């Protein structure tokens, strides 16, 4: 018995020794790692899986070209379950892996903001394809987003409600998360600013995300006389709200945000989401050949159309790879950060150029749902 134990421990020691001796020799050929941190399970897994698919697709297209400086790209996925607590633990996990210098993610602004300080401390680039909370990019200079700040998007949503749909009595229904609360506040302020157009907020209801029954809130909005409802939430809020609202008022207009641009919205909402409108910065039916190529490839690979945020994740990964290629490698964090900050990247979501905060400015396309498909608002309205 003792002999066996001795033998085993020797084998272990040798194995460990070899491991240590071996690793530096292999480092030169080590792949470039990029992390995707997003909800891969749970309610918002649709988005997280989209992020992962998009980044994998971008990585594969680089690998086909021979990688970066002969090194292949490896995508690692981390599931944050869209919870801030999990987000921080994922961030620490990523920080403990010295090879990962860039994270694409997280999804919800609240999770991004919980995780961002860790990335900033370890000088890891975080590019969120979806965070739109005003305070997110201010957390540090390593924190970027390839999404517009919610102020601009809220303006575009209100523009749809007031100018395109011609409604004045605005009801707001918002989810009670960091993002939801701050966005609802921004929408209210914007309505006040445009008071001369006659638009007013008649009622505002906060709901718990995922509580499924929004009828009490809807009854209140309806009694306050809302004729358009701004839905501050994801597709899983917009779909049930439109369905439940249309039971008591079939003429209600629902306006959402770009994060409801997802095939799941139509699947879950069915007929009731007809006419739901929202602004996006990426539209899969655009005439741009670059977009069409991306959409075709994505469809072939994953069997569904990419959503706006998926496209933003795709470009985010592209930005990082381009910066690494220009620089030669990813070892010098500060140089990498500067490279990304100064980069002008031409992708499927238009031209991306980060400003001094790490934010981007993009133009919006207005989209609505007609006959179970996403169409441009002007096309949908004219028919």
């Amino acid at each position: 018995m003792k002999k066996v134990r001795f033998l085993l421990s020797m084998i272990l020691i040798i194995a460990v020794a070899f491991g240590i001796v071996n690793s530096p020799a292999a480092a030169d050929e080590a792949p470039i790692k990029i992390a995707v941190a997003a909800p891969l399970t749970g309610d918002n897994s649709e988005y997280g899986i989209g992020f992962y698919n998009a980044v994998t697709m971008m990585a594969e297209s680089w690998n086909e070209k021979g990688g970066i400086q002969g090194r292949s790209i490896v995508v690692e996925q981390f599931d944050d379950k869209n919870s801030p607590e999990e987000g921080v633990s994922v961030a620490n996990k990523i920080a403990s892996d010295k090879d990962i210098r860039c994270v694409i993610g997280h999804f919800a602004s609240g999770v991004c903001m919980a995780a961002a300080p860790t990335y900033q401390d370890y000088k890891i680039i975080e590019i969120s394809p979806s965070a739109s909370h005003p305070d997110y990019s201010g957390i540090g200079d390593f924190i970027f987003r390839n999404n517009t700040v919610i102020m601009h998007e809220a303006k575009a949503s209100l523009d749809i409600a007031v100018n395109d749909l011609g409604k004045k009595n605005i009801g707001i229904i918002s989810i009670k998360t960091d993002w939801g609360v701050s966005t609802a506040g921004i929408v209210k302020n914007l309505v006040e600013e445009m008071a001369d157009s006659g638009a007013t907020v008649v009622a505002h209801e906060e709901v718990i995300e995922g509580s499924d029954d929004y009828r009490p809130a809807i009854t209140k909005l309806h009694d306050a006389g809302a004729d358009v409802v701004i839905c501050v939430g994801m597709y899983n809020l917009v779909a049930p709200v439109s369905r439940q609202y249309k039971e008591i008022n079939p003429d209600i207009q629902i306006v959402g945000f770009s994060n409801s641009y997802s095939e799941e919205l139509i699947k879950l909402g069915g007929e009731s989401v007809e006419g739901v409108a929202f602004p996006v910065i990426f539209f899969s039916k655009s005439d741009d050949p670059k977009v069409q190529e991306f959409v075709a490839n994505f469809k072939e690979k994953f069997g569904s159309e990419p959503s706006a945020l998926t496209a933003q994740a795709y470009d985010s990964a592209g930005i990082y790879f381009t910066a690494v290629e220009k620089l030669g490698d990813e070892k010098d964090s500060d140089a990498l950060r500067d490279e990304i900050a100064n980069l002008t990247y031409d992708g499927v979501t238009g031209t991306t150029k980060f400003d001094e905060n790490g934010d981007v400015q993009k133009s919006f396309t207005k989209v609505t749902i007609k006959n179970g498909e996403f169409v441009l608002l002007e096309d949908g309205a004219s028919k």
Partner: protein
Amino acid sequence: MLLQQIMNGVTIGMTYALIAVGYSLVFGILRLVNFSHGSVYAFGANSILFLISLNIGIIPAILIGILLTGILGVLIDKTALEPLRKKSAEGITSLITTIGVSSVITNLLIARLGSQKKAFPALFPTGEIIVGSIKFTYTQIGMLVISLALLICLLLIVERTKIGLAMRASEQNITAAKLMGINVNFVISFTFFLGGMSAAIAGTLVSSYYNMAYPNMGYTAGLKAFAAAVLGGIGSLPGSLLGGLVVGISESFAATVLGSEFRDSMAFIILICVLIIRPNGFLGKKSIKKV
């Protein structure tokens, strides 16, 4: 608007009552809070949605789903709880086991069906009847009628049939019932079967009301129904109905008066208030020995 909110509350309260019945029945006989009940409810709704997607027709899908969920209830008892009873394990062991079972069922559902919310077809035609200032949608009326009919059925089974007599006998004294020649194990299985079926029916009604089903739907619904069962007096069927209605209506009012964000905590606030005054709930019997 006040009446409308009451109506909204009554509708959802009835389904809480249906779930609460499952807690009550099992507690009555085994003196055990079966925390796997919420996941059984989710299983009912999700399996029916899955069966509907197989295109076997909505009615057969629902019937098979209800039956399957009833069988799941029996399976839980046979695999997880009966072995513990045979070894006369502590009550707390069974309690923890049911929490574990609940986690197993939910995660199996996620593994098989994915965790996203899926659209659930409407079971009732759209449309409404307006009485005075209240609108009753057909869905709400359908839910009310079915839940009420089912609760009356359950009450009749327990009060008027032979198996019901056996259930009540086991409830009073399980050892004495055994000595009188009652097949107690069968009675327990039957109880779990009834609980599972009523949970599946509640799951179907709620999913069709909200137009969606997903594996995690049982968590809050299960807790609220448990609160309803305790509120009405756990072990009493009319108590479950009363508890369910109180929880449903108070939620609806909380959403109107205090704001929607208070909705989900209302069941527990009421529960605490009532239990301070009446520790056995509205219609509960006194002298509960173990929990």
